[in-house]
Protein backbone atom coordinates (compact mmCIF):
# COMPACT_ATOMS: atom_id res chain seq x y z
CA UNK A 1 0.00 0.00 0.00
CA UNK A 2 2.86 2.34 0.84
CA UNK A 3 4.13 1.68 -2.68
CA UNK A 4 0.99 3.25 -4.14
CA UNK A 5 1.21 6.24 -1.79
CA UNK A 6 4.91 6.63 -2.60
CA UNK A 7 3.99 6.82 -6.27
CA UNK A 8 1.12 9.25 -5.73
CA UNK A 9 2.82 11.59 -3.26
CA UNK A 10 6.20 11.60 -5.02
CA UNK A 11 4.49 12.09 -8.37
CA UNK A 12 2.25 14.86 -7.07
CA UNK A 13 5.18 16.81 -5.60
CA UNK A 14 7.05 16.57 -8.91
CA UNK A 15 3.97 17.58 -10.91
CA UNK A 16 3.45 20.58 -8.63
CA UNK A 17 7.07 21.65 -9.10
CA UNK A 18 6.69 21.26 -12.86
CA UNK A 19 3.54 23.40 -12.90
CA UNK A 20 5.37 26.12 -10.95
CA UNK A 21 8.27 26.01 -13.44
CA UNK A 22 5.89 26.23 -16.41
CA UNK A 23 3.57 28.91 -15.10
CA UNK A 24 6.13 31.22 -13.49
CA UNK A 25 8.97 30.44 -15.94
CA UNK A 26 11.27 30.00 -12.94
CA UNK A 27 14.67 28.36 -13.40
CA UNK A 28 14.48 24.73 -12.16
CA UNK A 29 17.48 25.40 -9.88
CA UNK A 30 15.43 28.03 -8.02
CA UNK A 31 12.58 25.58 -7.64
CA UNK A 32 14.99 22.95 -6.24
CA UNK A 33 16.29 25.46 -3.68
CA UNK A 34 12.74 26.54 -2.78
CA UNK A 35 11.65 22.91 -2.42
CA UNK A 36 14.30 22.23 0.25
CA UNK A 37 13.28 25.33 2.18
CA UNK A 38 9.59 24.44 1.82
CA UNK A 39 10.35 20.96 3.15
CA UNK A 40 12.05 22.53 6.18
CA UNK A 41 9.05 24.78 6.84
CA UNK A 42 6.52 21.93 6.45
CA UNK A 43 8.67 19.84 8.77
CA UNK A 44 8.69 22.62 11.36
CA UNK A 45 4.92 22.89 11.14
CA UNK A 46 4.73 19.17 11.90
CA UNK A 47 3.19 18.34 8.52
CA UNK A 48 6.03 16.54 6.78
CA UNK A 49 6.59 13.82 9.40
CA UNK A 50 3.07 12.39 8.92
CA UNK A 51 3.57 12.52 5.15
CA UNK A 52 6.69 10.35 5.53
CA UNK A 53 4.63 7.92 7.66
CA UNK A 54 2.09 7.61 4.86
CA UNK A 55 4.23 7.75 1.71
CA UNK A 56 7.66 6.59 2.92
CA UNK A 57 10.25 7.16 0.22
CA UNK A 58 7.60 9.04 -1.77
CA UNK A 59 8.10 11.84 0.76
CA UNK A 60 11.82 11.42 1.55
CA UNK A 61 13.06 11.11 -2.05
CA UNK A 62 11.90 14.52 -3.41
CA UNK A 63 14.16 17.37 -2.28
CA UNK A 64 11.57 18.51 0.26
CA UNK A 65 12.64 15.43 2.22
CA UNK A 66 16.14 16.88 2.41
CA UNK A 67 14.77 19.95 4.20
CA UNK A 68 12.75 17.67 6.46
CA UNK A 69 15.86 15.63 7.37
CA UNK A 70 17.81 18.81 8.16
CA UNK A 71 15.12 19.99 10.60
CA UNK A 72 14.54 16.55 12.15
CA UNK A 73 18.29 16.14 12.72
CA UNK A 74 18.59 19.57 14.33
CA UNK A 75 15.64 18.98 16.65
CA UNK A 76 16.97 15.53 17.64
CA UNK A 77 20.40 16.92 18.47
CA UNK A 78 18.95 19.90 20.37
CA UNK A 79 17.06 17.38 22.51
CA UNK A 80 20.33 15.52 23.11
CA UNK A 81 22.96 18.27 23.31
CA UNK A 82 21.10 21.54 23.88
CA UNK A 83 21.41 24.61 21.60
CA UNK A 84 24.62 23.38 19.99
CA UNK A 85 22.56 20.65 18.39
CA UNK A 86 21.47 23.33 15.91
CA UNK A 87 25.01 23.16 14.53
CA UNK A 88 25.48 19.38 14.58
CA UNK A 89 22.09 17.88 13.73
CA UNK A 90 21.41 19.10 10.21
CA UNK A 91 24.45 17.75 8.48
CA UNK A 92 24.57 14.64 10.68
CA UNK A 93 21.12 13.63 9.49
CA UNK A 94 21.82 14.44 5.84
CA UNK A 95 25.39 13.12 5.78
CA UNK A 96 24.53 9.86 3.94
CA UNK A 97 23.02 11.68 0.97
CA UNK A 98 25.71 14.37 0.88
CA UNK A 99 28.57 11.90 1.25
CA UNK A 100 27.09 9.76 -1.51
CA UNK A 101 26.77 12.86 -3.73
CA UNK A 102 30.42 13.76 -3.15
CA UNK A 103 31.82 10.23 -3.57
CA UNK A 104 29.69 9.02 -6.47
CA UNK A 105 29.51 12.47 -8.05
CA UNK A 106 33.29 12.69 -8.18
CA UNK A 107 33.70 9.09 -9.28
CA UNK A 108 31.20 9.35 -12.15
CA UNK A 109 32.65 12.68 -13.30
CA UNK A 110 36.10 11.08 -13.46
CA UNK A 111 34.92 7.89 -15.18
CA UNK A 112 32.51 9.34 -17.75
CA UNK A 113 32.57 12.12 -20.30
CA UNK A 114 29.61 14.26 -21.33
CA UNK A 115 27.58 12.86 -24.22
CA UNK A 116 26.85 14.82 -27.34
Amino acid at each position, binding site marked *: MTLLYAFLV*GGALCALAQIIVDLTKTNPAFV*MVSAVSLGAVLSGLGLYGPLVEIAGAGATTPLLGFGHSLVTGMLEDVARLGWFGLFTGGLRATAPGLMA*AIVFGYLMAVL*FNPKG
Partner: protein
Amino acid sequence: MTRARTKDREEYNRLAQSFHPPRPVLRNALKAFLVGGIICTAAQVIFGYLSARLPRTQAFAMTSSLMVFLGAFLTGLGVYDEIGRFAGMGAALPITGFANSVVSPAMEYKREGFVLGVSARMFQVAGPVIVYGSLSALLVSILRVYVFK
Protein backbone atom coordinates in the same frame (compact mmCIF):
# COMPACT_ATOMS: atom_id res chain seq x y z
CA MET B 1 10.77 58.59 -29.55
CA THR B 2 11.46 56.31 -26.63
CA ARG B 3 7.78 55.97 -25.91
CA ALA B 4 7.09 55.04 -29.49
CA ARG B 5 9.83 52.47 -29.33
CA THR B 6 8.44 50.97 -26.12
CA LYS B 7 5.07 50.76 -27.79
CA ASP B 8 6.62 49.08 -30.80
CA ARG B 9 8.30 46.62 -28.55
CA GLU B 10 5.08 45.82 -26.72
CA GLU B 11 3.37 45.35 -30.03
CA TYR B 12 6.18 43.09 -31.18
CA ASN B 13 6.10 41.05 -27.97
CA ARG B 14 2.38 40.55 -28.26
CA LEU B 15 2.75 39.47 -31.87
CA ALA B 16 5.66 37.16 -31.08
CA GLN B 17 3.70 35.67 -28.18
CA SER B 18 0.81 34.79 -30.47
CA PHE B 19 3.14 32.71 -32.63
CA HIS B 20 4.58 30.79 -29.66
CA PRO B 21 2.87 27.48 -29.09
CA PRO B 22 1.16 27.52 -25.68
CA ARG B 23 3.20 25.73 -23.00
CA PRO B 24 1.73 22.27 -22.62
CA VAL B 25 1.39 22.74 -18.86
CA LEU B 26 -0.94 19.83 -18.28
CA ARG B 27 1.06 17.37 -20.34
CA ASN B 28 4.34 18.43 -18.70
CA ALA B 29 2.76 18.02 -15.28
CA LEU B 30 1.57 14.53 -16.20
CA LYS B 31 5.03 13.51 -17.42
CA ALA B 32 6.60 14.89 -14.24
CA PHE B 33 3.99 13.04 -12.18
CA LEU B 34 4.64 9.69 -13.87
CA VAL B 35 8.43 9.81 -13.85
CA GLY B 36 8.67 11.37 -10.37
CA GLY B 37 6.22 8.77 -9.12
CA ILE B 38 8.17 5.90 -10.67
CA ILE B 39 11.47 7.13 -9.16
CA CYS B 40 9.84 7.42 -5.72
CA THR B 41 8.28 3.97 -6.07
CA ALA B 42 11.70 2.53 -6.91
CA ALA B 43 13.07 4.22 -3.78
CA GLN B 44 10.20 2.77 -1.74
CA VAL B 45 10.98 -0.74 -3.06
CA ILE B 46 14.62 -0.30 -1.99
CA PHE B 47 13.48 1.06 1.38
CA GLY B 48 11.11 -1.89 1.84
CA TYR B 49 13.97 -4.30 1.25
CA LEU B 50 16.36 -2.46 3.58
CA SER B 51 13.88 -1.74 6.38
CA ALA B 52 13.32 -5.46 6.86
CA ARG B 53 17.00 -5.72 7.84
CA LEU B 54 17.89 -2.33 9.35
CA PRO B 55 16.48 0.25 11.77
CA ARG B 56 14.08 2.66 10.05
CA THR B 57 16.27 5.81 10.04
CA GLN B 58 19.25 3.87 8.77
CA ALA B 59 17.14 2.27 6.04
CA PHE B 60 15.93 5.70 4.88
CA ALA B 61 19.50 7.04 4.90
CA MET B 62 20.83 4.10 2.92
CA THR B 63 17.96 4.39 0.44
CA SER B 64 18.91 8.02 -0.19
CA SER B 65 22.56 7.10 -0.70
CA LEU B 66 21.59 4.38 -3.14
CA MET B 67 19.30 6.70 -5.09
CA VAL B 68 22.13 9.24 -5.27
CA PHE B 69 24.37 6.49 -6.64
CA LEU B 70 21.77 5.54 -9.26
CA GLY B 71 21.23 9.18 -10.27
CA ALA B 72 24.97 9.77 -10.58
CA PHE B 73 25.56 6.56 -12.53
CA LEU B 74 22.70 7.16 -14.97
CA THR B 75 23.97 10.72 -15.47
CA GLY B 76 27.42 9.36 -16.29
CA LEU B 77 25.86 7.01 -18.85
CA GLY B 78 23.98 9.96 -20.36
CA VAL B 79 20.62 8.36 -19.59
CA TYR B 80 19.47 10.73 -16.87
CA ASP B 81 19.62 13.80 -19.08
CA GLU B 82 17.27 12.03 -21.51
CA ILE B 83 14.88 11.32 -18.63
CA GLY B 84 15.23 14.96 -17.57
CA ARG B 85 14.38 16.22 -21.05
CA PHE B 86 11.21 14.15 -20.95
CA ALA B 87 10.11 14.68 -17.37
CA GLY B 88 11.48 18.06 -16.28
CA MET B 89 10.96 18.43 -12.54
CA GLY B 90 9.87 14.80 -12.39
CA ALA B 91 13.56 14.01 -12.83
CA ALA B 92 14.99 17.10 -11.10
CA LEU B 93 13.06 17.10 -7.83
CA PRO B 94 13.88 13.56 -6.57
CA ILE B 95 17.28 13.11 -4.93
CA THR B 96 18.45 11.39 -8.13
CA GLY B 97 18.10 14.83 -9.76
CA PHE B 98 20.27 16.27 -6.98
CA ALA B 99 22.91 13.71 -7.96
CA ASN B 100 22.42 14.66 -11.61
CA SER B 101 23.01 18.32 -10.74
CA VAL B 102 26.32 17.28 -9.11
CA VAL B 103 27.65 15.03 -11.88
CA SER B 104 26.58 17.06 -14.93
CA PRO B 105 28.66 20.22 -14.34
CA ALA B 106 31.50 18.16 -12.82
CA MET B 107 31.77 16.16 -16.05
CA GLU B 108 31.29 19.23 -18.21
CA TYR B 109 34.17 21.16 -16.63
CA LYS B 110 36.63 18.29 -16.41
CA ARG B 111 38.86 19.98 -18.99
CA GLU B 112 39.44 22.80 -16.48
CA GLY B 113 41.14 20.34 -14.17
CA PHE B 114 40.20 18.21 -11.19
CA VAL B 115 40.33 20.97 -8.59
CA LEU B 116 38.94 24.10 -10.24
CA GLY B 117 36.98 22.08 -12.80
CA VAL B 118 35.45 18.90 -11.39
CA SER B 119 35.37 19.53 -7.66
CA ALA B 120 34.62 23.26 -7.76
CA ARG B 121 31.73 22.85 -10.19
CA MET B 122 30.19 19.83 -8.48
CA PHE B 123 28.25 22.10 -6.19
CA GLN B 124 27.05 24.63 -8.73
CA VAL B 125 23.41 23.75 -8.02
CA ALA B 126 23.86 21.43 -5.05
CA GLY B 127 25.68 24.20 -3.15
CA PRO B 128 22.74 26.62 -3.13
CA VAL B 129 20.46 23.71 -2.20
CA ILE B 130 22.65 22.89 0.81
CA VAL B 131 23.14 26.54 1.84
CA TYR B 132 19.49 27.58 1.70
CA GLY B 133 18.35 24.24 3.07
CA SER B 134 20.65 24.58 6.08
CA LEU B 135 19.74 28.21 6.70
CA SER B 136 15.99 27.68 6.48
CA ALA B 137 16.23 24.52 8.60
CA LEU B 138 18.20 26.50 11.20
CA LEU B 139 15.56 29.23 11.25
CA VAL B 140 12.72 26.70 11.47
CA SER B 141 14.47 24.78 14.27
CA ILE B 142 15.14 27.95 16.28
CA LEU B 143 11.48 28.87 16.00
CA ARG B 144 10.46 25.35 17.02
CA VAL B 145 12.83 25.16 19.99
CA TYR B 146 12.71 28.68 21.39
CA VAL B 147 9.57 30.43 20.16
CA PHE B 148 6.75 27.92 19.65
CA LYS B 149 7.80 25.37 22.27
